[in-house]
């Protein structure tokens, strides 16, 4: 039959490609379901990825954060430096977490297992999660005011966790002894190992079924194919160099310093060069982004301008060239602290999106409000110590033609499925969540409105300590093209005496008495276009849906509602809008 081989080949390729993806997907689920950190179990996705022996990214789980996938990709060379391929054997499992060797920060542990075919290493299975606690000067990996990596927790160079299938108890012992939650961290490491074991099993089945070289050939083709598709789409961008900049609101340590990420993005013949020249020198605080993390931001931003269905593998990295000046926020020198790197990664994404929006104005967006992280810890009524990492999202920036989604953090984050729910939290920890609502009027005003932030009130039942790391609170997410910034979020403690202690955006180990309340407001996303141009009916719909107050409609959008609050007073609206335009022509 003509072309029978081609048909066969296509089918085999499909089986191999989906087999790889499914292996990664399955591993991510296994890690989540068997982990012990509440915020991982209740939602946060584990990253699982497959790399080839040359360190190329082959596949990753579908809900995985690019930050995590890029870290696994960037750290494999460090592992190979310490343990060359020919020294590895079946059943070996390795761990590392050094931000200066591809890692993120101490609490994000990376685990690798080599996968063998024809007696040699063909692939690596990798998994990564934020573990419960690994020391450092505040709990749960949230050392918000650390000024070097040593204050952020135990760093592991590439080490064996298992050797030929046998656990290396010395290393596991060191990890446990350096944690405030030794049982949880041990459970988390076991979960990571379970994940790489799943991938290894699936890949061995594939290699056995189709043969090593066939699998390798299809992996190569699939990477080449992704690269070709990315380049084809990039060729459609008007060639040129575009500039973007994004200011970070502070590192919590040097209040007078200003931090900015600067990019010059050059689109040319199917490739993109990103030059971070002009970016601020590295911070003393934790906002520094190790190279793998900055790279993840670059890949993410560029992927927003190509076909989203292109599979995420090495082919997406190849057309990109980055210049990351050393000693800056985007490529710091050791031992700069890195735990708050999301602020710099997100600034890099915003700066690149802003630059490329010059080439593609339909892709203009307001800035997003990102993620507000806090940890709570204490001793419960039965005398048992407890700790947990929490986070909540701010609003997304407005897009040309649609409002920003509420409380989802940033375009590159995976959505709200990663947040724990209230009932299981209350079942496990001595706290009561008193309310959790969208924060009215927090979305940045604009022709297209920024997404809303959230207001959450948590009552502590026993004395506790809180550490906070807010983003885009001192400088709320700016709007674009005449849109207003989102409202700035806050952390506060409502005291027994009726006062509210407003905390700095980054603060460590603040005490809360039993019965006092921790109050979190996340920022709103930035608006897009002048608010006076927003269709008044959209403003009315926002009022009816509780996103904008009647007062906000008048002050932010110059829309006046009638006495019932359910319809627009058109003459009054026209007058007010005319006045506004006269004031700011």
């Amino acid at each position: 039959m003509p072309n029978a081989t081609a048909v066969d080949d296509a089918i085999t390729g499909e089986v191999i490609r989906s087999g790889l993806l499914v292996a990664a997907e399955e591993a991510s689920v296994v890690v989540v379901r068997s982990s012990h950190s509440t915020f991982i179990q209740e939602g946060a996705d584990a990253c699982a990825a497959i790399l080839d022996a040359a360190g190329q990214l082959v596949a990753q789980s579908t809900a995985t954060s690019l930050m995590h996938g890029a870290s696994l990709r960037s750290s494999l060379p460090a592992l190979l430096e310490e343990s060359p391929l020919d020294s590895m054997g079946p059943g070996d499992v390795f761990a590392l977490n050094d931000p200066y060797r591809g890692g993120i920060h101490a609490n994000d542990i990376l685990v690798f297992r080599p996968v063998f075919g024809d007696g040699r290493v063909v692939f690596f299975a990798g998994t990564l999660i934020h573990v419960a606690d690994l020391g450092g000067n505040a709990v749960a990996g949230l050392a918000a005011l650390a000024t070097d990596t040593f204050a952020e927790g135990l760093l592991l160079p590439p080490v064996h966790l298992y050797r030929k299938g046998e656990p290396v108890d010395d290393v596991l012992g060191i990890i446990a002894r350096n944690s405030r939650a030794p049982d949880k961290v041990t459970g988390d490491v076991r979960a990571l190992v379970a994940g790489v074991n799943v991938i290894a099993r699936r890949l061995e089945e594939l290699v056995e079924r189709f043969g090593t070289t066939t699998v390798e050939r299809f992996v190569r083709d699939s990477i080449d194919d992704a690269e070709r598709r990315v380049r084809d789409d990039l060729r459609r961008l008007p060639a040129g160099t575009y500039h973007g900049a994004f200011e970070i609101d502070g590192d919590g340590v040097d209040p007078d310093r200003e931090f900015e990420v600067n990019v010059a993005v050059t689109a040319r013949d199917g490739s993109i060069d990103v030059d971070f020249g002009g970016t601020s020198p590295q911070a003393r605080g934790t906002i520094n982004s190790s190279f793998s993390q900055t790279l993840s931001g670059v890949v993410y931003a560029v992927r927003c301008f190509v076909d989203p269905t292109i599979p995420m593998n090495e082919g997406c990295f190849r057309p990109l060239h980055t210049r990351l000046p050393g000693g800056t926020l985007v490529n710091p020198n050791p031992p700069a602290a890195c735990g708050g790197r999301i602020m710099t990664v997100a600034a890099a994404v915003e700066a690149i999106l802003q630059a490329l929006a010059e080439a593609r104005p339909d892709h203009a967006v307001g800035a997003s409000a990102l993620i507000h992280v806090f940890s709570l810890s204490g001793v419960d009524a039965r005398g048992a110590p407890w700790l947990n990492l929490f986070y909540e999202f701010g609003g997304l920036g407005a897009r040309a033609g649609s409002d920003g989604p509420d409380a989802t953090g940033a375009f590159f984050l995976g959505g709200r499925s990663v947040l724990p729910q209230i009932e299981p939290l209350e079942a496990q920890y001595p706290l009561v969540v008193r309310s959790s609502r969208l924060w009215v009027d927090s979305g940045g005003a604009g022709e297209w409105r920024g997404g809303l932030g959230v207001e959450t009130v948590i009552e502590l039942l026993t004395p506790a300590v809180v550490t906070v790391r807010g983003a885009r609170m001192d400088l709320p997410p700016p709007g674009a093209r005449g849109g207003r910034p989102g409202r700035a979020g806050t952390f506060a403690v409502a005291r027994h005496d009726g006062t509210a202690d407003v905390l700095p955006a980054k603060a460590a180990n603040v005490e809360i008495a039993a019965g006092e309340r921790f109050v979190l407001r996340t920022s709103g996303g930035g608006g897009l276009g002048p608010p006076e141009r927003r269709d008044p009916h959209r403003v009315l719909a926002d009022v009816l849906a509780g996103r904008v107050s009647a007062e906000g409609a008048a002050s932010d959008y110059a829309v006046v509602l009638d006495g019932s609050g359910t319809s627009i007073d058109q003459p009054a609206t026209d007058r007010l809008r005319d006045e506004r335009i006269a004031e700011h022509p």
Partner: protein
Amino acid sequence: MTDQRPHFVGVDVGGTFTDVVLADSAGGVTIGKVPTTPDDPRRGVVEGIRDALGRAAVDPGAVSRVVHGTTLATNVVVQRTAAPIALVATEGFGDLLRLGREARVEEDRYDLFFTPADPPVDARLTFEVAERVSAKGEVLVPLTDEAIAGVARRVAAAQPAGVSVCLLHAYAHPAHEQAVAEACRAAVPAAYVVSSSEVWPEMREYERAMTTAVCALVGPVMAAYVAGLESSLHDLGIRCGVEIMESSGGVMSAQAAARRPVATVESGGAAGVTAAGIVGRSVGLADVISFDMGGTTAKTGIVRDGSPAITHDFQIGGKGSFGGTRAGTGVPVKIPVVDLAEVGAGGGSVAWVDAGALHVGPQSAGAVPGPACYRRGGTEPTVTDANLLLGYLDAGGLAGGVTLDADLAAAAVGESIANPLGIDIPGAAHAIHEIVNETMASAIRVVTVQRGIDPRGFTLVGFGGAGPMHVARLAAAFGIQSVVVPWAAGVGSAIGLVSSDLTVDLVQTRILDLEHADATTLTQLFDELEARGRKELDDAGATFVMTRSADMRFHGQAHQLTVSVPDGPLGDEDLSGLAKRFHEVYRQTYGIDADAPAQLVNARVRVVRVVDKLSPRSHQVAERDPNVALAGERAASFVEVGGFTTTPVFDWSRLEPGSRLVGPAIVEGADATIVVPPGYSAAVDRWRNVVLASGEAS
């Protein structure tokens, strides 16, 4: 003279065809297939039943059960067509659904314009009530009469069609919810009111609230649909009520379905897996994979130890490569759902070429215009056209009520596939067949290898109008040695409907450290659930079968695994047995050990009321000559022989139990055609099932 013996009707509404089975208690079966009427599925249902009764000459008054598989609930949720409903939530948490738990996966991640779906309840119809209960079920803020009256008044002013009440920790203390629900019933008598503790008292407020909201959304529609259907059937002379297949594989009365309509979300799919399980049991196989390929989609599921695998993480309209269970990609419902994977691959699936690559589905030509070979004006090549060109279907023969036209099939495949790809027509037909097999294989992969299950020890049960043509190839792709095509395969799901008992599934969240738990508390917990189940299936003289299970985890974990629990009063040894079983399941599932103390989180009970149903008719088996059933021969294409070869065609209805034949061969039934590839043998068992086996060409 009409037949007056009790009869059971099963009717399954698919995307293309509505399948009808009319069965008597002695195992006699009449089958029917009519086009589905999507604008009002009832028309097709009534038409199909009328037709079957007429052909079998059965008095409608003799019908004692009508069991229905319907996609109504799923359609209502996915298409958002229902009238607005209200939600009552604890003060401070009215934004519970709106804040949502959406996940951005796959291509959504890189879409700057991605917008999460709106929740099923409008913000203006969400009401807060002052009250609060702790995780232990203690009242932190009492619910006052004023608060109850106030919220009922506000709800009434909005005049919703349905009201869902979901208060925090109501699984531990349902009284507040019940009081609010009662007040809403009194204030809006026309509305369908439901509370989360009635529907599904399990911890995790978002999924529980969604499950409750889906009930309120679907309830009024389901009640009206069932009432209309019962009335139409009554006009036909059928006097019994309608029963609905549940997503967990049991059957519920129409009244119960109206009370808990969320339980019908995967009604049709569940019937297929149930049918496969019954086939498996009758032939003595405990582990089977169900493969049901119709006109629009193919569905797979697995049966282990005789029971369909169940998921508790179902998302209506969900996506991601985990077969609709990726959290945050759909509307989550916390009821047990038969663990299904569904792909857009059926006989009507359209083949198309894009940028030099061949794709099949997910679009379907449906029943109208149908495949090109149906002569109903369809010009796009479909899987059925390819199967006709490969000689698997009979040119000039009947299918779907029409005569198949091979010239039209060849024209469609030639123009849309063969020419653009530069290959010949048989090559293109072969490619379509293979690609659709690959799509369906991915559905088998979802329910097996993706769940960590090796399919090789299983038997593949292939049915549905198109399934028996593909089943042997699929089995080979997974190294599965044994294949069964059940008698009446073309309407397999409807057979499942009339073979099922009345069932109810119940849950109660109760967090207990197993080390400190006492057996009496646990016994009481299960006894209460069983009593509730018996009451729901009320019938004093009935026989009940109870199945207990428990969701367990290690202290400090959040996710659970389900472990079976012994019947009757539990002793201390049962508690330690439970812990031991949990450790074993954990090791099997995750491949690692853990030594933390075990905790029980949810108690689950399935209560089954045994009722009259179809039991398959057994025949004498003897050595038979298959050639008495030889109906002819035709050229059919097989890769093993490098193309077309003369292939004998047998008439399934004339193949006596005990007949054996060797591939290549084709077995034609009234409702389905079985392809027996070279290297396979086929044997007819005592239930007239065709059992295919590879590598024993005897």
